[in-house]
């Protein structure tokens, strides 16, 4: 959180996160080039540029695989949520590795020719009408452009400027990009390799992304939209202290009904920063705290405590026959709503 934009909002956890990422990339590349490659059983070693494009290409693939596993893992087991905290840096580093891969490709396969490199990349193989021999580079170019866009729009400014839903839609392009990377590999390198080791490792990695997404999808289930102007939520004592119940509202949005001791308040479930699920967060020092990046909002008005300026919509609540009911219409972000006072709940 900040009240002003800075290039990167560093904190010790981000330093640690990035240090682990750099260690991963360094270990991968150094081991590939200095231990793995010399151990390959070859008559003469492959060209240095080709070995490097393989090293950086496979590294980018495995990193992207790890990135795509974080989301479903965090949904399946909340202990993985911290990996989501700095996932944008993970993406930026992956984009750099992927660009390095493409640079080796351009400066080797598409160099030494009277045709300029980019023109050669786009025009040397135009067999778009066939699967075997399809210009798989096109899939790589698409994925690289997506990675570049995502890396270039990872700053918090973009979230605020585009709005989190638009930003998220843009960043959902990572799904087609990953499919494109898989296509890029299976129509290219995978067709060539005689040793089955790469196919096995690659297949296992890509299928684990598919498997985790399926598992997370099955776990989440689809909640029904509630109906009516007032929607019953729960009895106050059924919401544990400092936690929330998430309700799917008639308009398809979600609201989070929090209990903080004897006070009960409701806000939009979507955090103002990145639309993280506030209802999966906690109330800490009287503030609802987002489980993704720790943005905080006061229970009574959905505003971040000063000097911060973020706001989320609030909802009116009422108590009907001992059951909390939430108004179907959201209030404007930051509208004060007096929390329900339920002293009996805090005695449970």
């Amino acid at each position, binding site marked *: 959180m900040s009240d002003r934009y800075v290039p990167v909002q560093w904190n010790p956890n981000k330093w640690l996160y990035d240090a682990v990422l750099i260690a991963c990339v360094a270990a991968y590349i150094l081991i590939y080039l200095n231990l793995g490659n010399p151990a390959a059983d070859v008559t003469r070693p492959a060209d240095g540029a080709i070995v490097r494009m393989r090293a950086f290409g496979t590294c980018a693939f495995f990193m992207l695989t790890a990135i795509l596993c974080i989301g479903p893992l965090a949904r399946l087991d909340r202990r993985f949520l911290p990996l989501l905290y700095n996932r944008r840096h993970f993406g930026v580093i992956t984009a750099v590795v992927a660009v390095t891969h493409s640079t080796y490709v351009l400066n080797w396969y598409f160099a030494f020719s009277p045709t300029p490199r980019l023109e050669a990349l786009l025009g040397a193989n135009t067999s778009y009408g066939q699967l075997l021999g399809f210009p798989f580079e096109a899939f790589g170019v698409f994925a690289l452009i997506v990675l570049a866009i995502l890396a270039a729009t990872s700053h918090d400014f973009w979230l605020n400027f585009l709005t989190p839903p638009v930003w998220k839609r843009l960043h959902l392009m990572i799904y*087609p990009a990953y499919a494109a990377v898989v296509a890029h590999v299976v129509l290219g390198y995978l067709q060539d390799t005689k040793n089955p080791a790469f196919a096995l490792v690659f297949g296992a990695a890509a299928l684990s992304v598919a498997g985790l997404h399926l598992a997370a999808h099955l776990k989440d289930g689809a909640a029904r939209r509630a109906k009516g102007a007032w929607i019953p939520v729960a009895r106050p004592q059924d919401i544990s202290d400092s936690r929330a119940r998430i309700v799917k509202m008639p308009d398809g949005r979600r609201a989070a009904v929090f209990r903080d001791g004897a006070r009960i308040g409701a806000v939009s479930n*979507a955090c103002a920063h990145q639309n993280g699920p506030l209802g999966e967060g906690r109330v800490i020092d009287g503030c609802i705290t987002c489980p993704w990046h720790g943005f905080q909002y006061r229970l009574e008005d959905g505003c971040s405590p000063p000097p911060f300026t973020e706001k989320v919509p609030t909802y009116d609540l009422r108590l009907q026959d001992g059951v909390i009911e939430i108004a179907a219409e959201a209030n404007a972000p930051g509208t004060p709503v007096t929390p329900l006072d339920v002293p009996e709940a805090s005695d449970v």
Partner: protein
Amino acid sequence: MESAQTLLMAGQVYVWIGLAVAVVFLGWGLDRIDAKGHGSWMFRPLLVPGVILIWPLVLWRWQVLARENDNLQNRHRPPLTTQRLMGLGLVLAIPVLIAGALLLRQDGPLERPAVMLETAAETSSNE
């Protein structure tokens, strides 16, 4: 190669327009639409690549914000259904791509005999 040239030319035009948008937006427009940007300059060079890549989106948001047309409730409607569907798309696409590619692979026997269709013509045979 002609279509490659056309594509590259279009890409260059896109980037040049993006650069122009970046200069105007980061130097002038941003201060008028985002209070957090006031007096903060260090982060702006970081935004240049982003503006160049998605400048049509930048222009659209810029005019929405400049006219104070922004629907604040819309900031809290995450595309959860789209995300679920795209996740499911990936669940489907990955096994299909891998299985398809393994079926395509030409790793059958590689010692396929050559078949003689006609013997050599007598006239040109060497003595």
